[in-house]
């Protein structure tokens, strides 16, 4: 796992010593691996089944998006790329991709600008109502998006900004700002405060400390947080779907609308080709992301173990 930004050694390193014995099979009497042998097979069979589904799903969509026609056979008769050009024109993909990128980038910039200073205060200071404020920032991440999304969307339609790009950006900020705060707080906690104190002693004011000392140190963390926000925003379906309209649909929502359009939806292959474009975009983002962050960070806040 590409953990260049992580200063602590990988956590599995303490496990290393028993490894050679385990591999050679010459274990001390009474020493067994924790899970017995038959279960090993079950684990591997289960994992294999999971991957068969995964690869099957991915491949069948890709094959479908190139196939013409593909009905009652293992593989399509011909492979063509026309579904992509058709889909591109039919759904105005250039516009959809533009909207998706605009939303994602705006959300990243705003949530970083707003979230990082807040994370800094939460990481460094104690003040009254700190627990309440932390809880306030945690709630939007813990709640299912629909729960607060529907009241929020109602407010937006009442204000008359429903179906606009602004609304889509605003709803995506709701989980993104707390997410930046939650990922950045442990990151800032691990930066040695004596560096800031030294700068303060040398006469730097808050702004100088921020721009000259903290910002360079924070860049890896900010990068990781922005990529995670990017992944989440591009993939965010529920919230965007509630407030977006034909002119402000992001890619996921556009695909969903195409799949559920009245009258049986669009041709399956058109949707498949859009889905492939979506997955390809996400994969590019993720490949870039995995260079800067570890996979576990994708799903949770990972407090880098400071005890090492």
């Amino acid at each position: 796992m590409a953990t260049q930004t992580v200063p602590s050694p990988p956590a599995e390193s303490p496990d290393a010593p028993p490894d050679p014995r385990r591999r050679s099979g010459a274990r001390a009497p009474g020493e067994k691996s924790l899970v017995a042998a038959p279960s090993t097979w079950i684990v591997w069979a289960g994992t294999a089944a999971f991957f068969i589904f995964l690869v099957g799903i991915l491949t069948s969509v890709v094959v479908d998006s190139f196939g013409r026609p593909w009905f009652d056979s293992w593989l399509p008769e011909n492979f063509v790329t026309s579904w992509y050009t058709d889909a591109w024109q039919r759904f105005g993909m250039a516009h959809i991709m533009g909207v998706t990128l605009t939303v994602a980038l705006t959300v990243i910039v705003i949530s970083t600008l707003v979230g990082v200073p807040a994370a800094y205060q939460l990481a460094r200071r104690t003040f009254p109502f700190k627990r309440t404020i932390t809880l306030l920032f945690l709630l939007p991440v813990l709640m299912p998006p629909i729960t607060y999304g529907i009241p929020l969307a109602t407010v937006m339609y009442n204000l008359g900004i429903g179906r606009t790009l602004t609304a889509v950006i605003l709803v995506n900020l709701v989980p993104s700002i707390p997410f930046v705060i939650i990922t950045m707080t442990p990151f800032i906690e691990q930066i040695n405060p004596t560096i800031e104190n030294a700068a303060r002693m040398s006469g730097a004011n808050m702004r100088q400390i921020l721009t000259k000392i903290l910002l360079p140190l924070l860049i890896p963390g900010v990068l990781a947080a922005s990529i995670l926000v990017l992944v989440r925003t591009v993939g965010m379906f529920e919230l965007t779907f509630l407030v977006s309209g034909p002119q402000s649909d992001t890619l996921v929502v556009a695909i969903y609308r195409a799949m559920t359009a009245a009258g049986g939806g669009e041709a399956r292959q058109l949707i498949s080709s859009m889905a492939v474009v979506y997955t390809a975009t996400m994969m590019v983002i993720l490949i870039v992301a995995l260079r800067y962050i570890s996979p576990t960070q994708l799903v949770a806040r990972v407090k880098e173990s400071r005890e090492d």
Partner: protein
Amino acid sequence: MSRGQTTKSTASLRHRLAERGIDSSLLMLVPALIFAVALFIYPFSYGIGLTFQPSAATQAQWGTSIFANYIAFFNDPFIFDSIWLTMRLALPVALFNVVVAVPVAFKLRHKFVGKKFLTILLVLPITLGTVLTAQGLLIFAGRQGWLNRFLLDIGLIDAPLALVNNYLGVVFSLIISGFPFAFLLISSYLSGIDPSIEAAAKTMGADWLQRFRRVILPLLAPGLATTFILTFVLAFSVFPSARLVGDAMGSTRVMALMAFRAFGEQNDYPMASTIAIMMGLVELVVIAVVLVWRSFMYKGSTGGKG
């Protein structure tokens, strides 16, 4: 939070506030708080208020009291049953994801050739998203898909299995998107457990079952609880897959779908808010139960990450 700013800046008061941790640098919190209040607290309270202002249609059917939305929620079987339908999907899936992820994470916690490759494969479903997963399942596991075709060809089944457009389809889609989350989380918790504790138990002669039950499980319990809650939240708010690979008017008529139906199709915002708030409540109940279970387990520091 802007107390430090609004008070008169007499030196002594400012000093007293600073001693309590209030000074002007706390202003850095203000933008985030404004966003949290304007986009989360206000709409949420507005939504709660809305639930007490039932629409004319609801009032006509369920009486004119301000609780008409709630009366409708609990008495209309079409809506109320969706709680049970959601639970029937989310609980088994979340439980499955956690229970299966534990042994897999155990097997994969040591270094071996191809570990990185496997981890990347496990992250892959995140790139698929619900929509492609749904599309893929419809094609792959559909009546004419490769899965049924293969099972028919090797003679395991006589007729194609109905794996999509029903309960099973949604379960598959939820496992595919939820399992990687559970696996990655549990791996990170597992790597936070000091291996010397297990080694000590081994020295005292504990077999693997005892070590697992008495040592690993209590240490892992908080992590398991968190993982369960997160995968449950994911599965609980399922909505695109319930519509796309499920049976949206039958066995997978989940709460999120009902809430959206009221919102988008009937434009009954008060009812939609009611269903949404009840969703949050039901979810909180489940989370509370999990946290109570967790409090019965080991209470000390676990050294786990997160």
